[in-house]
């Protein structure tokens, strides 16, 4: 009897210890989550319905239910750059999934073949991804410079006497900015390559026996097998495309129709002389929601594609 009780006590003590350990080890991360993510997100949502700008910095005022959507109204109907920014950011998100991922996959497949010098190419291809996008932005700013860059001489081959700064031309500026980041897919390529290398050798051999080699094998055997990774990297590429800021800041500062959503938020909240926190947070809410939409859309697209493949068989 007595022995059982001490045993129970021991167990209880152990349970307490266990709970204490779990709590102690989780606490720092959860604290960070609450301070750095939860609290700011709640603030963003709540104050997107408040009058809050440079005139009342310390005390946001709730609009009341009658004018609940005032900030959103302003953003949609009066703020001149919102639709441009949303269109650009969405385009960059789509290009991330539609251009970056195929390029990254093609290069990863090429790198997976045992060709001479393939290790060198792989190592060199990742170098630009080790450099900050801010530095790459400045390098491209110089490349695009009309008087000493290398883009204008190339354009002059097709169009004699071209001497404009392409970053100031509506249209070309957007293309130029996109080209300043979109081809650097080093880390994505490596993640895909890692997955390609993990495809078991037996599967490849079986494919060979069925007469599928080279590109055919890649398309019918390898790609379906790495679909999970492709979905993940597509989501990441689309999300980071939607969030672009550095390229805009360093290349054009929003000139010639190149605003992005992140740029709008920072301009409204920090850099403009008449800061408008409530409205900036309204744009931030849209950015968060758009991020969720991107995840859902990419997931849907990949599951649709998979379904089709199965029917094909």
């Amino acid at each position: 009897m007595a022995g059982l009780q001490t045993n129970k006590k021991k167990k209880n003590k152990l349970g307490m210890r266990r709970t204490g350990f779990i709590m102690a080890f989780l606490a720092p991360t959860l604290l960070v989550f609450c301070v750095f993510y939860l609290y700011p997100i709640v603030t963003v949502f709540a104050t997107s319905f408040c009058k809050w700008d440079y005139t009342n910095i310390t005390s946001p005022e709730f609009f009341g239910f009658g004018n609940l959507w005032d900030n959103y109204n302003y953003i949609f109907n009066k703020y001149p750059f919102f639709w441009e920014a949303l269109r650009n950011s969405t385009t960059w998100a789509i290009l991330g999934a539609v251009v970056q991922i195929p390029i990254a996959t093609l290069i990863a497949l090429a790198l997976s073949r045992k060709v001479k010098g393939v290790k060198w190419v792989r190592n060199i291809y990742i170098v630009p991804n080790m450099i900050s996008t801010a530095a790459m932005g400045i390098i491209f700013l110089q490349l695009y410079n009309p008087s000493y860059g290398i883009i204008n001489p190339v354009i002059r081959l097709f169009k004699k006497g071209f001497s404009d700064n392409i970053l100031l031309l509506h249209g070309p500026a957007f293309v130029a900015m996109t080209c300043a980041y979109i081809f650097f897919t080093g880390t994505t390529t490596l993640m895909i390559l890692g997955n390609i290398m993990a495809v078991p050798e037996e599967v490849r051999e079986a494919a060979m026996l069925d007469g599928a080699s080279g590109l055919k094998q890649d398309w019918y055997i390898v790609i379906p097998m790495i679909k999970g990774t492709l979905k993940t990297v597509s989501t990441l590429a689309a999300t980071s495309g939607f969030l672009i800021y550095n390229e805009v800041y360093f290349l054009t500062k929003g000139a010639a129709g190149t605003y992005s959503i992140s740029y709008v938020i920072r301009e409204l909240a920090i850099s403009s002389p008449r800061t408008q926190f409530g409205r900036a947070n309204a744009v931030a809410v849209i950015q968060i929601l758009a991020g969720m939409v991107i995840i859902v859309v990419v997931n849907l697209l990949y599951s649709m594609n998979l379904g089709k493949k199965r029917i094909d068989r």
Partner: protein
Amino acid sequence: MNMRKDKPGKGVKNMSAFTRIFTYLCLAWALLVALVPLVWLVISSLKEDPLARPGFQLPESICLDGYISTFKDLHVLRYFGNSLFIAGISVIISVIMISMSAYVVARMEFKGKTLVTMLLYSTMFIPATALTYPVYRLVNSLHLYDTRGALIFVYACSGIAVSFFVIKNYYDNIPRDLEEAARIDGCGYVQTWLKVIFPIARPGIMTAAVLAFLNNWNEYYWASLVMITREKLTVPALLSTFTTAFNTNYNGLFSAMVVIILPPVLLYCFFSKFFIEALSGGAVKG
């Protein structure tokens, strides 16, 4: 003997001409994309006046003035020091924190585990830019604005999801017998983690740390937001002063750019094996 060489579908000999040409085209494109901007930058930095000899023309004579002034007048080493300090401290804080909670989530059952996991994963999809103003205000109210502490705070707190993902995956692959053995030997929970699990999980934790360090080293958005004093800036934040600071001194600008991108590139050259294994999830050997 030649088994390895003759593996099907991978060696050059087994490829059809089309596949081979296509492969080489892809590789050539990869080289072109990576090298053109960087080679152009280095060539330009050696020209006394890049305006006089634009494009890929080689310099008449090699001019190193820009490099000398980058160290002498720009004091670039100071900013490297700032970046190293800020990125280093924040990585240490975040990695210790995450490896503790990832362990609990990977190994123990408790109420609300799914919720905790979901919350931490969700941070991957919360754009930091959307939190610009609340975090900016938080930094101000903690009296951290324009201090190195501000950036350490931001970096240690952001990027939870990726580190969590990498480290938890690593824990999942460690056999549970080890802990049981340690428990039987009389180790408490903390001791078991500290003395048995942490050393074994070190490669996974290092991977997370390297990725986080690179991110923090290159981070521009927050670095330009919460710091003002020039002496305290990190390397990326210093870049935004470049376009105006150098005005028409292009030789100086190009040289400074080369110096600034050099540390991460050198670090990568020395540890490329490590980087490549880390980024490819261990499947590609460097």
